[in-house]
């Protein structure tokens, strides 16, 4: 299990993707799966910065990666406003160009790319988003 703390800033996304990418590699994942984990984590952290913290440099993001039995768990923790991605409606992927909305797309991708996405908010300890992916899984 490895934990790293990153300032809540978009320029940290590169390092965040590297951090979870290395853990996905440890779990024996292939290139496509590693990319999926990196994209899902990026989308999650972007949402933390934009919505939980309401902008850059308003806090920290703590990320823990845990590999067990070819399953990778990425735990993303912040102390911003609670923001439950499961409450965000799915984007309309069939709308034509003029009606297409980009809001909610990151969350939609996150759910599609991972096998499990769970969210927990606590007044004392902050918000915890857990992303789970099995090697060779469906996500």
């Amino acid at each position, binding site marked *: 299990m490895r934990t790293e703390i990153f300032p809540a800033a978009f320029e940290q*996304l590169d390092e965040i993707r590297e951090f979870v990418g290395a853990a996905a590699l440890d779990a024996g994942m292939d290139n*496509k799966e590693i990319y999926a984990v990196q994209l899902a984590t*990026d989308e999650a952290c*972007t949402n933390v910065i*934009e919505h939980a913290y309401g902008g850059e440099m308003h806090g920290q993001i703590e990320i823990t990666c845990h590999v067990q039995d070819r399953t990778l768990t990425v735990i993303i923790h912040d102390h911003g406003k609670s923001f439950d991605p499961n409450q965000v409606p799915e984007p309309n992927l069939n709308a034509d*160009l003029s009606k297409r909305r*980009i809001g909610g797309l990151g969350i939609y991708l996150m759910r599609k790319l991972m096998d499990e996405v769970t969210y927990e908010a606590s007044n004392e300890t902050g918000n915890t988003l857990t992303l789970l992916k099995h090697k060779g899984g469906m996500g």
Partner: protein
Amino acid sequence: MDITKQEFKHCDLLTVKGRVDSATAPKLTEAIEATQKAGHYKIVLDMSGLDYMSSAGFRALLAGQRNSKRYNRGEMVLALVPKNIEDALELAGFTELFKRFDDITAAVGYF
């Protein structure tokens, strides 16, 4: 991320390299907007040198396509989209919004 521009007779070719995420997507938006402000709405995006694109990049593509297609004045097309990015675009339902080409000559020749 790095963007270079080449002007052809009937379209502009933007070559995007590196990674597009929330940190770098504004640069992509800026490059597309600058091209459009110069009156060039027919744009080919060469994505062969792109390693990564998040939904922040998709947002830049969507805004660019909307602006190009307004008043039927043009279109943005994508060339040589890497597999991982293509898969994510597909998941996001974006592949139907952009014509995609397997080589630059065909993409430029489309206009």
